[in-house]
Every structure is written in structure tokens, then in C-alpha cells.
């Protein structure tokens, strides 16, 4: 039984240079994600990854099409959907002057979870010794782990991660991958976006490559490589997902 289904969801925004015109940031995207998957959306800047996620999360109104999370219509019951999912936004800011523990407690309360052990959750993401720190004092990797902890307070069935490793050094990135794998092993379905080919390749069971609001390819990393990576004439060596990505989206600079 799929935990996420999107059927032709679309979102249009007014054009920045001509507000009387609009363009499709997400152009009738359909996807099906099974429970327990790690599903990656790979795409250049402005491809529509964040917009797609936020429509599924009930944060952005869906202009057209239908999305269901855990069988619930997102447009009709966004609050019910929000109760079941955990969300890491692309950029997260918190109230200044509150400690990690205080913030986690607040988020738990907002989900109606009132008996809650923030320290246990901080331990899970390796931030126990930072319990009294303020988010502003955390390093990039610690911050992302804290953001994930915030997304876990309601024990979600699905975790949405929007570029969880952008800006992290290789150590912090690998550390975060392990965290994602651990959470997935606990049964949480993961939907993430990324610019990093290696990340998509190692972490995701399936990848959707998105550009200009459209999913232009969707499959397991291996199948995508088989189908799209250019083969050198002599040696039948594997390319990698980066080759696939560039072959499909071209080399032109975005944004």
C-alpha cells in the first residue's frame, strides 16, 4: 500500500519579471511512494523540488491534481496529514533565546504530545550534550540533526527532508546519511531532495529526476545508470548518477 500518492499535482506562481503572467513551478507531477522507501528527488535549482514537497506536506496549496498521504487527501485535511508526517524545511529558523530542549518540548506540545522526553530524542541524533545550547550556536551538521529531531517529536510515519546535507562537510554528510538509514530501518518512510548525486545513489531506493517542474526520469539508481549514462565505446564501465543527471538536464547553469 503506497503511503504517498500524487496524481497530476500542479502549482503555478506569477512570473517574477511579469506578475501578470504565471508559470508552472510544478507541472502536473505524479508519483507513488511505498511505505518504508527512501525516495529521492534530484534536480537543479528552481526545479520545483521544494514546491512539490510542500504541497505533499500540506504547507502549500495544491492548484490542480490530488495528493494523498497515508490515504488522506492533503488538500482536504492538511491538519490530519501534518499530524502523521515529520518535516525538515529547506531552511529552518527557531525562536531565539530558547534552548534545544525547550524548542523540542514546544514542538511536541504543538503536536499534542505532552509526555515527551526531549533528552532521549537528542541522544538519538547525538546532541545530548547540547541540550541547553541555543540553535544559533550549533554547527551546520548539528543544526541539521537538530532539525531532524524536531521533525521526529510526533513519531511520524513519513519524514520529508529538503536538502538535508546542503552545505555540510563530508564527515557531517556521512553522519547524516547514517542517521537517515537508522530512521529508515525503524520503519520511517523517507522522502528527500538533494543536489548531490552520490547522496541520491547511496541513500535512495528510488530517485526521481526533476527539472522545470516535471519528473523527467524515475527509477532505482542502478536502472537509471543503465538507461541513461553514456557508455564509453571501449570499456563497458559503469558511469555514475552524475553522468545521468547531466545527460538528462544538460550542462547549462541554473539560477
Amino acid at each position, binding site marked *: 500500500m503506497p503511503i504517498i500518492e500524487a496524481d497530476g499535482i500542479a502549482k503555478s506562481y506569477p512570473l517574477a519579471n511579469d506578475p501578470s503572467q504565471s508559470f508552472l513551478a510544478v507541472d502536473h507531477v505524479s508519483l507513488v511512494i511505498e511505505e518504508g522507501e527512501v525516495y529521492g528527488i534530484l534536480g537543479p535549482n528552481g526545479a520545483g523540488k521544494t514546491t512539490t514537497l510542500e504541497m505533499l*506536506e500540506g*504547507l502549500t496549496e495544491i492548484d490542480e491534481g490530488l495528493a494523498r498521504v497515508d490515504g488522506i487527501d492533503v488538500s482536504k485535511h492538511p*491538519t*490530519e496529514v*501534518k*499530524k502523521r508526517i515529520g*518535516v525538515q*524545511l529547506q*531552511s*529552518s*529558523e*527557531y*525562536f*531565539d*533565546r*530558547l534552548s534545544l530542549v*525547550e524548542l523540542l*518540548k*514546544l*514542538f511536541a*506540545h*504543538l*503536536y*499534542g504530545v*505532552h509526555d515527551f522526553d526531549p533528552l532521549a530524542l537528542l541522544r538519538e541524533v547525538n546532541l545530548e550534550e547540547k541540550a541547553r545550547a541555543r540553535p544559533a550556536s550549533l554547527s551546520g551538521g548539528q543544526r541539521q540533526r537538530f532539525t531532524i529531531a*524536531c*521533525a521526529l517529536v*510526533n513519531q511520524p510515519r513519513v519524514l520529508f527532508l529538503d536538502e538535508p546535507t546542503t552545505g555540510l562537510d563530508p564527515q557531517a554528510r556521512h553522519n547524516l546519511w547514517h542517521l537517515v538509514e537508522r530512521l529508515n530501518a525503524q520503519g520511517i518512510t523517507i522522502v528527500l531532495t538533494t543536489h548531490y548525486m552520490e547522496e541520491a545513489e547511496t541513500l535512495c531506493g528510488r530517485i526521481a529526476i526533476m527539472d522545470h517542474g516535471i519528473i523527467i526520469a524515475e527509477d532505482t539508481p542502478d536502472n537509471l545508470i543503465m538507461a541513461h549514462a553514456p557508455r564509453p565505446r571501449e570499456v563497458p564501465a559503469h558511469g555514475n548518477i552524475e553522468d545521468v543527471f547531466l545527460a538528462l538536464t544538460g550542462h547549462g547553469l541554473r539560477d
Partner: protein
Amino acid sequence: MNRAQLELGLVFLKVFSRDRQSLILGLFLPLFLLALLGTIYERRSASVIEIGVVDLADNALSVRFIQSLQETPGFVISTGDEATLKEGIKRGDLVLVVIISSAFSDQNQGLELPVMFDGGRIALVAMAVPRLQQALVDIERDLRNSVPMFTLRLQDVQSGGAPGYLDFLLPGLLALGLMQTSLAGSAFNIVEYRRKGILKRLFVTPISAMDFVVSMCASRIILVLAQVTVVILVGVFLLGAQIDGSLVLLFLLAILGCIVFLCMGFMIAGLSGTQESVGMIGNLAILPQMFLSGVFFPIEAMPGWLQPVASLLPLTFLVNAMRDVAIDAAGIVAILPSLAGMAAWTALCLVLAARFFVWREISN
């Protein structure tokens, strides 16, 4: 209020109490102004203390007592009949009036001398009474070697009379301070939360926009009540201001005022997309009210053409209502016109806020 609203409200309070800048602006500024302006006024007249004496005895001893008072540095003595001098207190010309009863003589033992004073100027009275007592003791010592002959019986006759500047200022500063806390607090914070994405993060959770508004308003109302309590306590007990009317009504007005300015804050947050424009629009709303709403001096002292505008400002309605209650002990009926003015502003701001407010970050 549900539990999520309660917890979010507590967080707002916590965030505020850890924000030193708003704490200073919200609490210490009104107190500072009150102490500064209130005592500048008192100091100016403190160099001389005007005392009225009603000499009903008119004998050698009473003449000698009056003479000794006249020789006391800082005292300015005027004599006259009781009714005239009592008026003097009420007009604020005299700080206190001593009545030398006809029985005043060197045979007295424990004779009570009534002293009428202006309760609104308790600081001055407190300064004058010991010196008055000293003058009496001096006479007593000369006559009978310090066997007490006279005692002073203090009675406040100011109630209903002319209030001091401090009494005038206190309700004005209460209103001004609570406008800062409610209006600036809501408008600036919401725009900041929206710009930083804190709002977006909050709405990832299943709370509704209404939850946020309820928590925000409840936390501001509690802040305002705390602020009003502290300013009143300091004003009355430390600075000697006097409040004649109902405290309950005053606190009720504080809550209503808070609601008016919260709505105004939401409206301003709706009209301004960015941090800069909220600063501009916010100050556009706050500064004129600060100076035109009769906080520091009565609207009647303003140029005639300005008065109609000034009298329609929301802060004017609140200041007037609070002043009517604090000084004239007005009841709810007497302040109905001011309440109507506040209600009209609330409605206007709510309509505009509902029309323009957006929760999402506004992309330039």
C-alpha cells in the same frame, strides 16, 4: 485555551522575558519617564513648601508658633480662614494647612492640631511634616521642657481636588507603555517570525492560524497586565502618585487597550511585507500617538487645528478613559464614549488585518 495554545503562549512570554531590549522598552521606559517627569515637577516646587495656617487661637503662643514656622527654611506661610486655605490645597497652591485650634495655649496637654494636606503630593507632605513637628517641639521645649503638648492630626483633603502632574502622567504612561508592548510587540515580532521562517516552521505542525493568534494575544495581555501592575505599584508606592478610581476598571481598560493595539499590530504586519517597512509603518503609528494623545500634556494645550485629529487617535481614547478612571474615579458609563472610540478602531484594524494579513513569507 487548549494546551498547545497555552504552551505556545508560555514560549512567547519566555522569549520576551529573555529579550532585554523589549524588557527595557516595555517596563523601564515608562517607569523612567514617570520618575523623571514626575519628580522634576515635584522638585521644582520642593524648593519652597507652601503652608497655610488658620489661626483660630490668635494668642501670643500661636503668633510665636507662626513666627517659628516662617523662620523654618523652605516654608512659605500664608494665613487665612479655613475655607479659603482648603481651596488653596485643592488648587495645588498649598501643600498643607495647619489649623491652630482656639484651645491652643501653654496649658495644653496632647492638644490635636489638624493638618489638611494634598494626598497627591505626599512626597512634599512627607518632607514638610517633620519640620512642622520640629517647630512645635521647639516651642514646647521653651515652654515646658519637652513635655509633649501638641500632636498633629493629618487629614487628606485632596480627594476630588486638583491632581498633581504625577497623577496626570501615570494613566498616560500606563496607556503609552501598553501600546508599545501590544502594538510593537505583535507587529514587529510577526514580521520577524515570518521573514525568518519561524512562522512557516510553526505551521508545519498541526496548529491553526487561530491557535497562533490566541497564544500571541494571551501572552501580550499577560505582559501588559504585569507591566501595568509594576508601573502602578512604583508610581503609587515609590513616587506617591494617587489613583482615586477603580483598579479593576483600570486593569479592564488595560486589557481592552491591549486588544486594540494588538489588532493594530496585526494590521501593520499585514500592510508591511518586510522588516524595513514594518519599522516605518510601525513608527508612523506609534510616534504621533506618543505626542498627540495627551500622554504628557492635555490635548487642550495643543494648537486648535490639531485637537480634532488628536482626539480621534486610539491612544487618546485609552488615555482619556484611564485618566477618567484614575483621577476622576469615573465609572464605566462615564467612559463609554472612549470605549466606543476604542471599539471602532478595533473593528477598523481587524477588517484591514483580515484583508491584508498573510502568514507566508512574502518574496520581495
